[in-house]
């Protein structure tokens, strides 16, 4: 497929990040174990620079959207919204990893390169407007993820996580690909706009309907929504904690972005029947995630189940299709989810000294006395995850519930608030441990400037956007799909 060379300018940030990742990979083979920290800082710098580059090739962002590579790759505000969030999530992950990986017996070089390559995959994903480019980007992300999940290769749990993730991930990719091929068969085109036109012409074609169902199932896997969620708690538990944080946020952001793009731009205009599937999955996901979290003793598993629950809430955003609340609700919610989830994971990272030590709920016992600031920060993140004002989680839920209700899904909104009450129960087990229970013995707590800085940034965002949400709301509304 020919394309003008000038299109390359559209993917300068992605090219840059790829080049850095590969360069660092080579550098990692020659650098000594002690100096691997430098790789992390270079990776971090590369992420920041990529963020800057996102805005460079264009005189002003008003010249967006631009589509290049024969309709495969779009630079629009929607993709920029997600790219910023994804780069931030990756940067936070690197800050979380510095000591975590440095003090582990595993080399750090490839680790940071894999994070960068995952990020590249995600950046391509959110810009994809063509079924094939979306799929390839998704695989780039997923393959890097499998390796990261099993990075602690001496640990059984890590290997188990990677194996499960790989098998289920590969299977779901297969389902997704099959769905995409059916859509292609029906539409005879791979671009989303083409699909939309074809679907408008024959909305009830069986091939389309089957394709849409399979694509939805494949994507439900990626965002870990029920009934395709079972991998998530195991993977979060087994993966290194910073990676669990990354998985809970980054890939989900990207998956939601392509979900929105495929369903809104591709399947949306022709037939809105897919909302029923989404609603069913949302309901099931909220229940499974929140009820499942009740029984968890391991904080990472608990946060894993909670992130399933949140995937259920977020799916409500898709239901507002056609109202002025759906897509902004989803975007605002995802931004808030990223802030509070990363923050909470950051505190879990600080709680661990190495490897798998210190991740049961009881390990938080007495934190409020030992480190009141950290406990207060965790409290804010947990309140935000529950959706209690004045935190950003409340704003996110406000939008999602309104979106669902505007689209007529009252019972779903009702289920959502009931599940929020359930979620209070397990989030507050951590609060109880921190504040109400006295810790026995030494609390394994490692203060670390890099992690603290990242947590403080998340905390500031959680509170600031909770009290004054207007900037976040305006930003999301300025970045809608067109």
């Amino acid at each position: 497929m020919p394309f003008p060379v000038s299109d390359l300018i559209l993917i300068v940030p992605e090219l840059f990040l790829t080049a850095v990742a590969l360069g660092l990979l080579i550098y990692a083979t020659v650098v000594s174990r002690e100096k691997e920290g430098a790789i992390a800082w270079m990776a971090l710098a590369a992420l920041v620079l990529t963020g800057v580059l996102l805005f460079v090739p264009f005189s002003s962002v008003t010249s967006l959207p631009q589509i290049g590579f024969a309709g495969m790759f779009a630079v629009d505000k929607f993709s920029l919204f997600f790219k910023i969030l994804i780069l931030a999530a990756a940067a936070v992950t690197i800050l979380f990893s510095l000591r975590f990986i440095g003090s582990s017996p595993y080399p750090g070089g490839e680790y940071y390169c894999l994070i960068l390559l995952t990020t590249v995959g995600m950046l391509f994903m959110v810009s994809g407007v063509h079924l094939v480019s979306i799929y390839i980007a998704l695989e780039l992300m997923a393959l890097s993820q499998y390796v990261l999940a099993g990075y602690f290769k001496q640990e059984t749990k890590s290997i188990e996580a990677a194996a499960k993730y790989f098998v289920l991930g590969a299977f779901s990719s297969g389902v997704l690909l099959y769905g995409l091929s059916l859509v292609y068969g029906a539409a005879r085109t791979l671009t989303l706009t083409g699909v939309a036109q074809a679907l408008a012409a024959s909305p009830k074609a069986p091939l389309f309907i089957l394709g849409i169902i399979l694509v939805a199932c494949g994507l439900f896997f990626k965002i870990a929504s029920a009934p395709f969620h079972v991998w998530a708690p195991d993977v979060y538990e087994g993966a290194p904690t910073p990676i669990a944080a990354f998985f809970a946020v980054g890939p989900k952001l990207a998956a939601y972005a392509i979900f929105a793009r495929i369903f809104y731009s591709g399947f949306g205009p022709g037939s809105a029947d897919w909302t029923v599937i989404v609603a069913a999955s949302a309901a099931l996901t909220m229940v499974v995630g929140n009820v499942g979290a009740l029984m968890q003793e391991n904080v990472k598993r608990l946060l894993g189940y909670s992130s399933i629950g949140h995937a259920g809430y977020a799916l409500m955003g898709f239901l507002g299709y056609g109202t002025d609340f759906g897509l902004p609700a989803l975007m605002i919610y995802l931004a808030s989810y990223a802030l509070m989830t990363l923050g909470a994971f950051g505190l879990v990272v600080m709680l661990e000294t190495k490897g798998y030590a210190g991740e049961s709920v009881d390990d938080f016992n007495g934190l409020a006395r030992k480190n009141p600031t950290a406990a207060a920060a965790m409290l804010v993140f947990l309140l935000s995850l529950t959706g209690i004002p004045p935190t950003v989680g409340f704003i996110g839920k406000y939008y999602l519930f309104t979106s669902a209700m505007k689209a007529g899904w009252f019972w779903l909104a009702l289920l959502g608030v009931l599940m929020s009450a359930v979620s209070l129960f397990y989030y507050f087990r951590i609060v109880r441990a921190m504040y109400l229970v006295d810790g026995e013995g030494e609390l394994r707590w490692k203060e670390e400037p890099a992690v603290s800085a990242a947590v403080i940034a998340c905390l500031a965002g959680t509170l600031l956007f909770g009290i004054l949400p207007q900037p976040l709301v305006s930003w999301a509304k300025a970045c809608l799909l067109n």
Partner: protein
Amino acid sequence: MLDSITSLDLLGADILTTLLFLPSLGALLLLAVPAEAKQAIRAMGLLFSGATLLVSAKIALRFDPATPGISGFRVDYPWMESLGIRYQLGIDGFALSLVVLTTLLTFCVLLVAAGQDLQRFKGYVVSFLILETGMLGSLVALDTILFYVFWEVMLVPMYFIIGIWGGKRRIYAAMKFFLFTLVGSLLMFIAILFLAIQHQKTTGILSFSLLDWMNAAKSNAWALTPGMEALVFGAFALAFLVKVPLWPLHTWLPDAHVEAPTGGSVILAGVLLKLGTYGLMRFALPLFPNATMKFTPLIVGLALVGVVYGAWVAAAQKDMKKLVAYSSVSHLALVVLGIFAGNAEAAAGAIYQMIGHGLTTGLLFMLVGVLYDRRHTREMADYGGVARQVPVTTTLFVIATLGSIGLPGLNGFIGEFLILAGVFKVNVVWCAIAATGMILSAIYMLTLIQKVFWGPVTQPVNNGLTDINIWEFLGAMPLVAGIVILGVYPGPVLDLLKPSITFVLEAARLHP
């Protein structure tokens, strides 16, 4: 003097904003104080709660009872502009009376705390100051989302107050309190969203303002079908009735009260329960007049059960705190009855009783706390004949009790009399049933006094009991004064409440 102290408006903020955020500012500043500096923490807590009390006093002095609607000291700024959510505050006589009650009780609680030996004292003071902001915000917010935010803000500090400084089963009680109230308020949240969507759909205006909604309700501009109105009313009523708490939603209350520390119990009984009845009058009745009419028999029925049940169960208690807790269930049920009786006397009595109950029950909990701090037991059987050892405590306790059971000359009489008089006009049977609750209350309260204070000393250990200390005395005195003043001179307060009551009843289409 008063003016010079309270004229330091924060950053040029208006007086209601100052009132709201003065306690939070104190809490914020306290974070910088080291936890060991108990003197400084005590001083800061008293300074900020005292200043808040003065600001509320200033509002009370400046407030003109003739102000129509809920427009006193109105503040109105856009907050989340694109959503139509506003920072809208306003006050009327009704809200004002509860605002003063709130600031007074918080100050008294911190006075009492100053004399107590509390673990993690800083956290205790910070919790109460944040709680105060939440309570005051719920009382003066006119935007429903803003109201909801403050309503939820109250939960977390109260959870900690019960959970950290509470008794043996504190963790269970704290969680139960949180869950019960959260379920109710989340349903209310959905109802609020629904109403805003409906309001926008029918009137074209995106607004969460109570005032706009009241206009819509008046003309039924938002075209609620009876079914929709019943559901939405149900969600609001549930949120408020859990807080009240009306039988059979009351089960969290005895647990919370028994486990909470003294200050927690005082605020819980004194203010938090009143916010439930406040919410009913402020939101549920005026916004949903038809549903109110429809649900009145049900709620009145529950209230009547509650009056008798609460009193009956209180009479069977051996634990003093549990006894007072169940007496609250009974008294608050009477308040609910007064609200739903639908005439001006009963409504005035209900509000008067809210204030009065806040003072008497606050004082009772405070004094039970005094005894508990010395003997570490709340069982009545562990005391007996302590009047000789603790004469001041005994005197105060007797005053609180007489206020609570409605002795003429003290506050309880006015409120109860007005409620019963109003209810009598509507239905004699209701009145008769409610009156039994009053009789029972005299029985169990006087029995309590007899068992604990009168007679010979039954346990030698009580011979060494020390009387109330200066901090506790200072904390109790304002409440005693309030009980007496409200009892002998109800005129000004009733005049203050009258316009609010007319306003509410007119909106609820119940003719005053």
